[in-house]
């Protein structure tokens, strides 16, 4: 979420989910909302069908939510900056932007204007494949929305240009005065239940909890004092996408992996497996013997969400309680007590009476959580920032001013995806999820019912490509990229565009990430899961 942080000074969903109820226009891009965030999609669908809100969907796939859209633009994979700049071009050209807002609350408008000047609808059509008149219509519709909300997901961020894509969306929203208003905003829908919380809690190499920079000596001193140590490391650490290759080169010797399964979720999986082989010491703490755990030197059995106390922070920054309903199986223990025990054995004793005591300590060193306590969120969660105990929480960020003063327009040029199709690899592959599974499937694939609905991996392919390749519904096909190859059954469907295929990434047996490209966005470190070049043939 580096793009949002750069623009507004804060990198999470700007508005509460309930703001969708107040939006006049909603723009969804890079989010298969009905399958990945079903309950949020219901808010959107209700807004359209019951209140007459107007919906724009920009997605190469014909997703369920696109059936509710007034305008559905189907761009070529990896061309997001181009269509976003194109919309801004039309909006500026036709004088549809919010001039008072731009003047009083933003900087960098002139540079933006110069940059988007060349992104005429015709030029954008040549890159994105979106007909120029449709692009212009979408631009006018978005600009007419008072207020207009933007929702996006991994289809925007999982590119080498992901940070650029987000900055461009953030600029579009500011241009029309939609940030810091109820019903508007730029809203990343977080994929996993507690991504927001993991980031908020300092699960990032360069910040402590509450995004307090480790490079700042004053903050380092504050944390060292709170934690009772003489000093804390100064240098920002490695991102996960750097750690794994560095296992191969020997700079990383040991990994402690808690509740993650990188050996299905990582890009360019064959290479990731190879890197893991080089680790001298791998510790995995999880509820199942995952693909990653099988490679571990020590496996620590932990408790699932139903077996422990604590909090999760949802995609709208709402801090909500997790409560223990049942006991963990066998000798499995909750992660909290495992971490404390391990830390104590490492010579740094940790002792807490329970999760609430940890929360209280965390809140005392984390300004955005400082006003929160279990008592306050007993009945209903509260969205941070919540700096003091009588603060009501903050459903809408940036009201009146941005976290760092003025909102910054970034003038961003279009860069093609890292890998483009050629004669050898003539199809674009994009990856994603299906309704019935979650992430690497370690939880959902234990459910007979969910497996019954979505039993195996598939390749979605357009009827015209299927015909050319002699592939029919249900044919077993082999999909090959420069990095690897998998087998799955074909689903012939106009949901995808000609020239592209879609594969869900959940399935370990046919892991789509054997194909994907590990090239990273240089700022966020997010890999380009959403586009790479492949070829497809009937399985031998």
């Amino acid at each position, binding site marked *: 979420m580096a793009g949002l942080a750069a623009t507004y000074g804060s990198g999470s969903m700007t508005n509460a989910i309930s703001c969708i109820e107040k939006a006049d226009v909603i723009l969804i891009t890079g989010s298969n909302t009905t399958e990945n965030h079903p309950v949020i999609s219901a808010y959107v669908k209700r807004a359209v069908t019951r209140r007459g809100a107007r919906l724009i969907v920009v997605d190469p796939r014909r997703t369920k939510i696109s059936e509710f859209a007034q305008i559905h633009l189907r761009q070529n994979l990896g061309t997001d900056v181009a269509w976003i700049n194109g919309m801004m071009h039309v909006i500026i050209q036709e004088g549809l932007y919010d001039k008072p807002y731009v003047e009083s609350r933003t900087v960098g408008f002139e540079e933006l204007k110069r940059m988007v000047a060349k992104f005429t609808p015709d030029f954008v059509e040549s890159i994105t494949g979106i007909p120029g008149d449709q692009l212009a219509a979408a631009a006018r519709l978005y600009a007419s929305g008072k207020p207009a909300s933007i929702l996006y997901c991994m289809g925007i961020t999982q590119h080498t240009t992901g940070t650029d894509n987000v900055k461009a969306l953030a600029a579009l929203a500011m241009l029309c005065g939609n940030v810091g208003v109820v019903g508007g905003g730029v809203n990343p829908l977080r994929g996993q239940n507690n991504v927001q919380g993991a980031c908020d809690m300092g699960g990032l190499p360069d910040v402590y909890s509450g995004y307090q920079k480790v490079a700042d000596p004053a903050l380092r001193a504050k944390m060292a004092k709170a934690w009772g140590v003489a000093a804390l490391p100064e*240098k920002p650490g490695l991102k996960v996408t750097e750690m794994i290759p560095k296992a191969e080169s020997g700079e990383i010797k*040991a990994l402690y992996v808690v509740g993650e399964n990188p050996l299905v979720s990582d890009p360019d999986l064959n290479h990731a497996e190879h890197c893991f082989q080089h680790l001298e010491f791998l510790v995995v703490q999880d509820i199942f013997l995952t693909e990653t755990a099988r490679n571990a030197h020590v496996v620590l059995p932990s408790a699932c969400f139903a077996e422990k106390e604590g909090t999760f922070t949802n995609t709208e920054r709402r801090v909500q309680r997790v409560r223990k309903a049942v006991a963990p199986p066998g000798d499995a223990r909750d992660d909290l007590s495992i971490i404390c025990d391990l830390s104590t054995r490492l010579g*740094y004793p940790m002792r807490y009476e329970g999760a609430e005591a940890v929360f209280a300590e965390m809140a005392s060193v984390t300004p955005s959580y400082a006003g929160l306590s279990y008592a306050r969120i007993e009945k209903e969660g509260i969205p941070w920032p919540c700096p003091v105990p009588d603060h009501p929480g903050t459903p809408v960020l940036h009201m009146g001013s941005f976290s760092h003063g003025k909102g910054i327009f970034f003038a961003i040029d279009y860069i093609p995806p890292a890998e483009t199709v050629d004669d050898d690899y003539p199809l674009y592959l994009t990856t994603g999820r299906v309704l019935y599974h979650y992430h690497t499937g370690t939880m959902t694939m234990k459910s007979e019912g969910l497996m019954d609905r979505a039993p195996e991996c598939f390749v979605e392919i357009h009827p015209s490509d299927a015909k050319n390749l002699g592939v029919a519904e249900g044919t077993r096909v082999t999909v090959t990229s420069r990095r690897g190859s998998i087998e799955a059954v074909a689903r012939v469907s106009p949901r995808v565009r000609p020239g592209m295929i879609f594969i869900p990434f959940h399935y370990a047996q046919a892991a789509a990430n054997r194909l994907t490209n590990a090239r990273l966005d240089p700022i966020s470190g997010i890999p380009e899961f959403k586009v790479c070049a492949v070829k497809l043939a009937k399985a031998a």
Partner: protein
Amino acid sequence: MGEDGQNVIIINGNPYAFEPGETILEVARRHDIDIPTLCHLKGAPPTGACRVCVVEVEGAASLMASCATPAGSGMAVHTETPKVVAARRQVLDLMLASGNHNCTIRQPDEADWTAQQLKVMQEDQAEELCPVWGDCRLQELAFRYQVTAKRYDPAKTLYPQELANPFIVRDFSRCIRCGRCIQACNEVQVNNAINFGFRGAALKIVAAGDRPLRNSDCVFCGECVQACPVGALVEKDTRYRVRPWETTRTRTTCSYCGVGCQLDLHVADGRVVRVTGAEDVAPNYGSLCVKGRFGYDFIHSPERLTTPLVRDGNHLREATWDEALDRVATGFKAIRERDGADAIGVLCSARITNEENYLLNKLARAALGTNNIDHCARL
């Protein structure tokens, strides 16, 4: 309250202020005046289908459905007159007689209870009372209004049960055609999977083309199951196995996607046996998706790890916590001494709690001495 009596309604003799556009039912609920309903679904437009919520309005020729009648200035409403009670009893009587409502409330005449019970047992392939016995709005209201459907013969069953999907049993013989499921599907979740089909006595809730749910647009969110006031829509897994008085509920947060739906885990004998959406709080107000509602099997999966494992050569073997944790601590300490703390990396998780993530961040930086901590959310 308006000084000149504007926007004031009189309910059971007391004046109450209302907002223009509010229905009689809404005003009454806001002031804790109990008007029973069956078909009314919060958050969806009223249909007025069941007529249980009728009230007497002074000066009106007939009883009015309070869910569909806007409050009016000076309107005088009575919610529990003999006429109202008689009308409700008649509605409930017909409903109770209309299907396999084999709870102890239903008392068929002469031919006695046994005949009906045998018929239902045969059709249900079960030897028990209705699967939602004790958790049924119709049963509750029948009890409140002392209705037994004594005057009616057991109804014929027109449509067989639908068992052909993994999640939901559709039992048309217990359907009272209140339409709440349709409202839940079309107005709340907007999945538009079901609607009324056929006419008159043959009225049935159907997916397009009267196909089974598994071949329809249904996405198994289960909103309809939670909305059904009777035993016509029931979670397959809980049917006959879970009785409400044998379970306790724990309010918690869904562990799948980032919406963070609030839900209740229903627990019996130390196992999660059912999940329902929490209706009174953000962000989901009762809604869930198929993963949150039906994806809980993993909690009690036999594949769960139950003991620490340590590697001996090529295989992992069981170990005690002491052995495993010592091995971890020794391993990390040795590498730190030899190669420095930055040779160690920690991957925390979007799956674990804030408290656990906070402690991992503390462990990495304060105990191990490295900022190499990240999570896989970017993936």
